[in-house]
């Protein structure tokens, strides 16, 4: 900072006739922020400060944490979701922690479940996640499984966690659990859901599962986590702990807290001895288009040249009649177009009303009861693994990772 005061310096703040000693934190929007000895921060004009003493660097102690060799090996691959964080009370700054020691120190209970190795892949806000990073992530997880990990935990921001979980579901045929976990309340707060989610995810990762899942709070209480299939899960609330829900299927199981007792349903894929298999091609020339009343056919010109489009249509899977021609043109130019429903719950059926029948005639593929996001990721995956359009369509129609079901069971 200008004027020779930098973060951590002891300063004298003058406000009117009042003087207070504190620690200079930073300057933001034209105001200097000072932490007073009482712990309170205040903002004041820069020229109200004078330097008393420069910062004394306090080296953070490096405490390594002993791990139990007799426990199974788990890998933690982090992409940026904060499973652990530390607060510097001198400045009030919160920093995310990614190495195994930090995570184990923050959540000591993990030590009793497994021996951990941590691998920091990215430090991303999950809205900045890209299909290219899914590929890197799939490769990293694949390597961990090849190395013999009993299971892999992927820490991830919650916003796009469901997309990444779907992507890894398709790209990676895994014989061991690959568990996505995050937190809805940041790890720096005493009420964070990170501890329960982390402990439950670790328990799921050593369990009898053998697929890609998301493990997050099942309710607003700290009582259990749900295990969701990576292709059927969706973030259904902007802020609640229990935002993640399985759509159209029941969860694969649950983990009680704090007992960490795991229950798996019959339809959960079990752990196997075979080798993992990776198909990491992905084609991001795809889009998810949400239809709305008043949508202009000219808006779709933007997608010309795209290899795939998923429509989140209304109801049974509709768009307005005037859009049908525009989609037909795209399909004739080689784009694969898939219909899903913005209702999220329920199956697409374009054989009931005229518009639907017109869409089928135009070559639109019914996406069954697939989530729009999952359909998008699946389309990127199949197009990333074949250059042939017809083969891609054929692959798409196949159920690959439980992403759709042929029976719509009541009550889900």
């Amino acid at each position, binding site marked *: 900072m200008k004027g020779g005061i930098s973060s951590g310096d002891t300063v004298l703040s003058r*406000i*009117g*006739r*009042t003087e*207070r000693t504190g620690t200079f934190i930073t300057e933001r929007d034209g*105001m200097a*922020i000072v*932490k*007073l*000895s*009482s*712990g*309170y*921060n*205040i*903002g*004041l*004009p820069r020229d*109200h400060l004078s330097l008393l003493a420069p910062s004394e660097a*306090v080296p*953070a*102690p490096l*405490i390594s944490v002993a791990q139990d060799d007799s426990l199974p090996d788990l890998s933690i691959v982090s992409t940026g979701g904060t499973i652990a*964080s*530390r*607060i*510097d*009370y*001198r400045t*009030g700054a*919160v*920093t995310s922690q990614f190495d195994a020691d930090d995570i184990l*120190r*923050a959540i000591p209970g993990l030590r009793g479940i497994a021996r951990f190795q941590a691998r920091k892949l990215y430090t991303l806000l999950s809205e900045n996640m890209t299909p290219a990073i899914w590929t890197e992530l799939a490769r990293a997880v694949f390597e961990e499984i090849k190395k013999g990990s009993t299971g892999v935990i992927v820490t991830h921001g919650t916003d796009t966690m469901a997309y990444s979980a779907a992507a890894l579901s398709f790209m990676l045929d895994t014989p061991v659990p690959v568990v996505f976990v995050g937190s809805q*309340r940041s*790890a*720096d*707060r*005493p*009420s*964070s859901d990170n*501890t*329960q989610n982390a402990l439950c995810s670790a328990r799921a990762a050593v369990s009898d599962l053998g697929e890609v899942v998301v493990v997050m709070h099942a*309710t*607003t*209480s*700290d*009582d259990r986590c749900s295990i969701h299939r990576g292709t059927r899960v969706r973030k259904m609330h*902007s*802020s*609640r*702990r229990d935002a993640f829900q399985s759509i159209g299927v029941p969860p694969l199981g649950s983990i009680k807290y*704090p007992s960490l007792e795991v229950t798996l349903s019959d339809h959960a894929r079990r752990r196997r001895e075979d080798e993992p298999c990776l198909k990491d091609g992905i084609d991001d020339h795809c889009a998810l288009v949400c239809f709305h009343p008043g949508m202009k056919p000219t808006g779709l010109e933007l997608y010309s040249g795209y290899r795939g489009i998923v429509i989140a249509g209304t109801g049974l899977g509709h768009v307005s009649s005037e859009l049908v021609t525009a989609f037909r043109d795209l399909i004739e130019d080689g784009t694969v177009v898939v219909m899903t429903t913005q209702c999220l719950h329920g199956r697409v059926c374009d054989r009931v009303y005229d518009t639907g029948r017109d869409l089928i005639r135009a070559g639109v593929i019914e996406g069954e009861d697939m989530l729009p996001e999952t359909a998008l990721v699946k389309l990127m995956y199949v197009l990333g693994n074949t250059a042939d359009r017809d083969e891609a369509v054929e692959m798409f129609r196949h159920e690959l990772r439980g992403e759709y079901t042929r029976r719509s069971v009541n009550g889900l």
Partner: protein
Amino acid sequence: MDYEALGLVAGIEIHQQLNTREKMFCACPTLLRKFDERNGEFFRYLRATESELGEIDLAAKEEMKHERLFTYYTYDTTCLVEYDEEPPGPLNAEALEICCTIARMFSMTPVPQIHTMRKLVIDGSNTSGFQRTALVAFDGELPNAGTIETLCLEEEAAQRAEGHTFSLDRLGIPLVEITTSPCMRTPEEVEAMARYIGMALRSTGRVKRGLGTIRQDVNISIRDGARVEIKGVQELDLIAEVVRREVERQKNLLSLREELRERKGAVKSEPADVTRVFSKTGSSILKKAPCVLAVVLEGFGGLVGREIQPGRRLGSEFSDYAKKCGVGGIFHTDELPAYGITAEEVEKLRVSLSAGASDCIVLVAADPAKASCAARQVISRAEKALQGIPEETRRMLEDGSTAYMRPLPGAARMYPETDVFPITISDDWYGRLPLPELLSAKAERFSREMGLDPALASQIASSEQVFLFEQAAASGIPPLLAARTLLATLKELSRAGTDVSVISDEDIMAVLSAVRDGKAAKEAVPAMLDALAQGRTLDQALSTCAPSLSREELEKIIRKIVEERRSFVVSRGKGAVGPLMGVVMAEVRGSVDGKLVSEILSKEIARVLGK
């Protein structure tokens, strides 16, 4: 007691709820609810977070010794912000304005830019595990050269329903926290200062009233003692007693330390496992405990059981510390044999630990982990007794004595609330905030300008209805009538079984205005208010309680009453006015002013007597 000689230094922290429309960080109403109105429950664990230096705040660590599950009651007047399921909204502008008005009343300097902080509190009273608080102003002036250090705007914590169960209705109500400097030297000064600040806060007319809406924390130390913060003194009448008792406690603990030093007291650093000593004991607590640990306190014999405050002993302090580990309490040899433990067992215990009669042995019984935690807590507190008085946060017990809560929290528990934007206070805005008239000044004015008796003026000024009273007086309602109605009539109605809580300020104004306008006599006020409480409209109340009468009609009624009681009037003479007043008033049911009745009645009686 000579407090000056003892070096008493005291300061207070006042927490006053603000009467805002909405809570501090959400749009929920600031309404307290009954527990049985709850519409749901959820439960959570709280954990202290680690600081950069691998430290956890002392106070937070203490709460964590025993991991607890907290239950929360929810209502249709709470939202996801109180659940800690949604980020906070912007800081309540109304609350900030009230806070700044209060700051200006004490001539404080506002903080140029206010930053909301998170103060770690993991006793369960905040779903988030922290209390949001913002420093708003510095350095205020108080009477008798007292000073205020800081004024903060905080969110209220959830109310404890029982045990580890909290009710979310109170969580998030804005409150102002005023911290004085340690500028008081006697218990009486502390009480007077608390009264003054409370009065000043109520002068704004924008703070909540009633029990629990204002709480005082007292910071006390004496020479060679330690700063102790006593939380949650709700009744002002107790505040001086709390100070007296804390001084007594510190004085006694200091003389206890001197005695221990003379006796060369010492604490054995490791607890001993004495489970086998009590394998056949008659004490059900010891018998069913998987582990009994003993702490030997050399030279402490007789001192652990000595009273240091009414109802409190050094043993009580040990017990409070031990309870942090989840045990129910402790036994110590100063109080044994008792509780099913025999003299023989005590002797056996002393022999097995080579402890003499001048030593005290403390027993804790629980599962091994809890027992070990509790024994270490006792050891730590006993060591502190050798040094003097520990700095602590304590809570008030019913009679004014106190019990240990946790160590004093440090600055290591504050970090920024990143979800709330800072707010810049402009000097111009602050300088133009209107200052309310102090209630004490109002009382003087009521007496001076309205001719109210000083005691009554002071009573109405300090009552919740002072602002309604002023409104009434300003609209031409006789002040005495307004004061009597607000202070006495409503109470009398309530005592007689009327639900006065449903009578609105507007109702009261309407009734008093009717009297002012001559539509009803002042005698009809109670009956009319009662009718309104029963759900009648003002017109219905007027027609039933105060039917309108012309002067001619009134004269007719009075003449009839006097004629019917002619012999009584003749025998009593002019003295008949008094008794007949009641008869007339009952007949006209308060529709006429008593003065007019008295005038006509006197005339009628004179007429009869003149015949």
